[in-house]
């Protein structure tokens, strides 16, 4: 079986600084993959590269068996790979509904209509259903810049999911969200994404969240992949504990959260 997303010897350097090297990853359909690593370990660089925002210095990226090196984000998106952002990328002065309507119209076709209305009953119905999936329907008429961080993060992810991608990359979906809300947010996202069957890769700093939601885990260290395997195994790894997590993990407690 060929992987949905595969990178071969992916590397990125800025002058003398190596941001990523020897990145070999395979993601299969429907997988839920967590990503950990300290700041600057290459997680966001990885997402930027595979979605075409940043051109790798060398290496290949295969999506659905085709090399997508040099493709722009919009082309990668059309192929079926979308992402969310560490800082939600939205249209801040527009309402939540307008944000979703625009995303829908753009997802429908890259050639935008000049004359038909953006706001149709059908689109609004779909938008409301989508917002309901992400449990932010109550904000539908609010202007985005007035919304709390958690709602923005959910809207950001909802907009990425509109085109029903096969792979969804989430860059720190819970950053900027209060600790007590992290699990709610992830539960909502995972439930909504599960409907579509997309493979998910998410960057996360909270080991409790990682343990509960990911089945597989990638640990980045110094621009390289230090460990890749079933989440529990990677979390037990000595190197991962000392280099990436920075302290010893109480696995019993983690498993307690994971099973809760």
């Amino acid at each position: 079986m060929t992987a949905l997303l595969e990178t071969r010897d992916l590397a990125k350097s800025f002058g003398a600084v190596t941001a990523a090297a020897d990145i070999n990853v395979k993601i299969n359909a429907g997988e839920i993959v967590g990503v950990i690593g300290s700041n600057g370990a290459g997680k966001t660089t990885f997402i930027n590269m595979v979605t075409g925002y940043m051109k790798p210095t060398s290496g290949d990226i295969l999506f659905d068996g085709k090399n997508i090196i040099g493709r722009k984000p919009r082309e990668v998106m059309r192929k079926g790979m979308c992402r969310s952002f560490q800082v939600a990328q939205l249209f801040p002065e527009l309402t939540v509904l307008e944000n979703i309507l625009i995303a829908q119209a753009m997802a429908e076709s890259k050639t935008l209509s000049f004359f038909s209305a953006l706001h149709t009953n059908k689109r609004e119905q779909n938008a409301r259903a989508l917002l309901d999936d992400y449990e932010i329907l109550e904000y539908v008429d609010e202007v985005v810049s007035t919304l709390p961080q958690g709602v923005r993060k959910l809207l950001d992810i909802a907009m990425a999911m509109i085109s029903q991608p096969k792979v969804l990359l989430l860059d720190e979906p819970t950053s900027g969200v209060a600790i007590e809300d992290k699990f709610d947010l992830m539960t909502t996202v995972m439930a909504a994404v599960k409907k579509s069957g997309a493979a998910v890769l998410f960057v996360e700093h909270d080991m409790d969240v990682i343990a509960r939601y990911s089945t597989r885990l990638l640990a980045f260290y110094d621009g390289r992949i230090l460990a890749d395997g079933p989440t529990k195994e990677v979390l037990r790894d000595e190197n991962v504990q000392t280099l990436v997590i920075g302290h010893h993990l109480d696995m019993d407690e983690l498993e307690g959260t994971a099973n809760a």
Partner: protein
Amino acid sequence: MNLALAVLVDGVVYSSWLFLIAAGLTLIYGVMKILNMAHGSFYAIGAYSGASLIGVYFAGGNPPWASYLLLIGVAMVAGLIVGLLIERGFLRFMYGRDEVVMILVTYGILLILEDTIKLLWGVDPYFAYQPYTLLGRTKISSLSFANYDFMLIAVTAVVAFILWWSLNRTKAGKILQSVIHDREIAGALGVNVTKIFTITFVIGAFLGAFAGAMTAPGISVVPGIGIEVIILAFAVVVIGGLGSVGGAFVGALIVGLSRALSVHLYPDGELFVIYGVMGLVLAFRPQGLFAIASARKI
């Protein structure tokens, strides 16, 4: 041979003039991130103040040689008054706005200053030819050049050197460079950004007025000269890279020499050449030749 000489001399004279005008514009942009449309008005104010005072000065029968000092003094006073008035009185309340909004703000200031100039000096032309003719002319080969123009080159060289020296060799200049590089970090490190802004704006206004005052003896000072000049200055700083004083120097040379070439070989292309060169440079280097790179943020 004569043609080459004429192109070279005219080109360098014109370049010096362009640099005098553009230096203040690019300095203000570099430090304050304001593309100051009113800079042309500073030039016009300098030219009018210079021309009218020179007229009074010579009418009073004062020693002619000191009139050059008068031009410098006039520019200093005009720059100080106008710069302080605009920066302290108005501009400082607008800081933090979008760069495009700041263009519109300075466009508004330009409109106001243009009519203020008409109200103060009327619409009749002013002539202040004495400092220009006083220096006489020099014959090189069979061509005759005004010595005032050579002096302009020397003055520009001095101004360029002082700017370079104070930006690179003094503590104040290094602080200024740090603000140009990253305003937020400079502010966080305890640099008094407000004070720097005021000083920069006044220096920029002085440079604009000085360019006008130095130009006045060679031209007839009429309404609208500032409007003409500002777009030339834009071309120069855009070619050199907005905010870079060294870039403005190179930009002025490029524009000055290509204009001189066009004037002597194909006079009809004079204006076209300036913006043509600008278009050409920007097509290959969108940020200009010596732009200070800014990182893309996600």
